[in-house]
């Protein structure tokens, strides 16, 4: 079969549509990925912010200024040095 002029027009038109379609598809995918990337970045930022806030609250809650008065209110006290026994560590360096 001999390709006539209109066939060539059809072929070129089809090629153009395929090329244009692939460009649109790639751009759409890129935008979708970019949006997902931004969302992930936002989530990361949000989580880091929450972690920092929790860290601050933990540090505050675990600080002596909070714990010691509570412990004292419960009847606890800091030990005197005579009540602290540091057990010797065996010397493993020798023969």
């Amino acid at each position, binding site marked *: 079969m001999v390709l006539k002029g209109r066939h060539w027009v059809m072929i070129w038109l089809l090629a153009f549509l395929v090329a244009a379609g692939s460009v649109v598809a790639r751009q759409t995918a890129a935008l979708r990925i970019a949006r997902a*990337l931004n969302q992930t970045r936002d989530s990361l930022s949000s*989580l880091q912010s929450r972690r920092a806030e929790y*860290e601050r609250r933990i540090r505050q809650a675990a600080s002596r200024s909070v714990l010691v008065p509570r412990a004292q209110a419960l009847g606890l006290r800091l*030990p005197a*040095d*005579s009540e602290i026994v540091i057990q010797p*560590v065996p010397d493993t360096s020798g023969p």
Partner: protein
Amino acid sequence: MAKLTTRVSFIEGSLGVLLLALLVRSAQVQLFQGARWSAEAKQARTEHVVLEAPRGALLDRHGTPIALTQETYHVGIAPNELRDPDHDPEAIARALHLPFMKVEDELSRHYAYFAGPFTAGTVQGLRDVRGVHLEPVLNRFYPSPDFARAFIGRAGEGGQKPSGLERTLDTLLAGTPGAAVVLKDRAGREYDSPARRLQSPVPGNDVELTLDAELQEIAQRSLRLALEKMDADGGDVVMLDPATGEVLAVASERRDGVSRPSAFIDAYEPGSVAKIFTAGALIADHRISLTDRVSGENGKYKMQDRTLVDDHPLPTLNLADAIRVSSNIAMAKFVTRLDHDDEYGMLRDFGLGTPTGIEFPAEASGRLALPKDWSRPTPTSLAIGYEVSVTPLQIAAAYGAIANDGVLLEPTLVREVRAPNGEILYRHQPEPVRRVVSPEVARELRQLLAGVVSSGGTGASAALATFTLAAKTGTSRQVVNGHYKAGAYNASFAALFPADHPQLVVVVKVENPRKGSYFAAETAAPVTRAMLEQALASRTVALDRARLSAVAPAAGVGELEEDPGVAPYVVSWPPAHDTAAPAPPRPVPDVSGRTLRDAVRLLHRRGFHVVIKGWGNVQKTWPAAGAEAAAGSLVTVFGDTPQ
């Protein structure tokens, strides 16, 4: 017909002219003005933005974050873009924790702007609200804002200069900003596409400080409580590791609440704390034998220019006595054996009158006059810690030299610098300044200082029960506007813990204590003891417990803090109420053959204190198993493998 032809020709001609004009204009735009129009188009559709570099983190020696950088946001709102103008303002106010009226007032303008900065968590709910524009900005965050605040400083946001360590370490912490290009539409709105990075930002380096977060908290809290209790104007605490010069804790508190690093920048006359330096000169230059004695003059000694008074008079004193009871009279007599140059040289060698070189934007050098500028009473004044001014940091460094077998080290606050990829760029190594005295002289000085904390010494109130301390008290008059202020004193205490192989130098200074005694023995010394007890009780404090365990049994037994009739106890959870009734003597349990841990637990449960000698399983105890011993008394446990 001819008319029609003419008309067509005219239209053709006109179109030809138009086409030609179009071609000419196109050529002009493309060929001659192409670059300009291209630049304008680029500018209209793209924007260059600076990408901020995250500032490096500041960490304590265990990796606990002290200062971090986190992304925060400014919030802009275009009211005309809001989808639900009736309900959105309320949601925005709720999310940003702002009063509704304020938000509504701002939204009445063309464009509302809330500077915040708001954390990512706060603005999370606003990300999908149309009309809300978030502007990310990096912000410095301090998890414990009060942590060594005067020394850490602030990163200097909003055009302010950084302060404190943030300033000194700025070149290390600040990264290199990057650059990017973003695409915009005709209305100037950014496309929802990633920016094209021209240059990525390089984050700053992380800096690990020498500070120990736990010890720092102990120091700050103890100092604050002490200042409240004594109604003092202010105070400082410096703790450093004498083997490395690393500052483990530094606290400065003022009663007026002003945050200033006075431990580094406020010089004062140290008083008797400086006597040990003159003692060092006397011993190093062989100008004294430890058996040499001088008269105590019944506590009052009239000199040509002044009258010296001792608070603890003794009939005669040797050098050890002079240090132990802090005798001004004996030191005044002993110092006459020194040349001016020798006395000056020793004080200078200990670092007095010169900045220590610590990494801090400002440090006072203190004052130590050259011998040529001395007046007649100067040698005596220097021997008892007057006519010389020092910072608490200088005292700590000088006592560190005594602890470090006579070698003065440069104190430091920086332990390690790490690149963003984790590569170690710098790690602190001890930096010796000079050898001040020989190891033998340093040992003798430590023995003199240990006498201060023994029975009858001025620092006995700082004594620990199981560890020896080497320390010196100092109570000096306070100088205000160049004159001694009546009734105002600075109380200081410098201690080496433990006395043998010290691991910690502690300097405590209390300014103008008003309630109770103003003497260092009753102000700064008990604070030191309280801090050391807390440090011992803490598992995370940077102490070498293996070395301490070897030192503790040899140190003997001090007095118990509690009434000996009350047994120390371990409180169960929830705590049972303490009956506090004096307990009768009880038999020492037989713990032979048990592991040390079991034995110690059992003896503690029975109400005894325990000292361990050796390791392995328990061989015997003293008092022996079955013998009666008072509750709270000491039981020595001998392991089957001697030390």
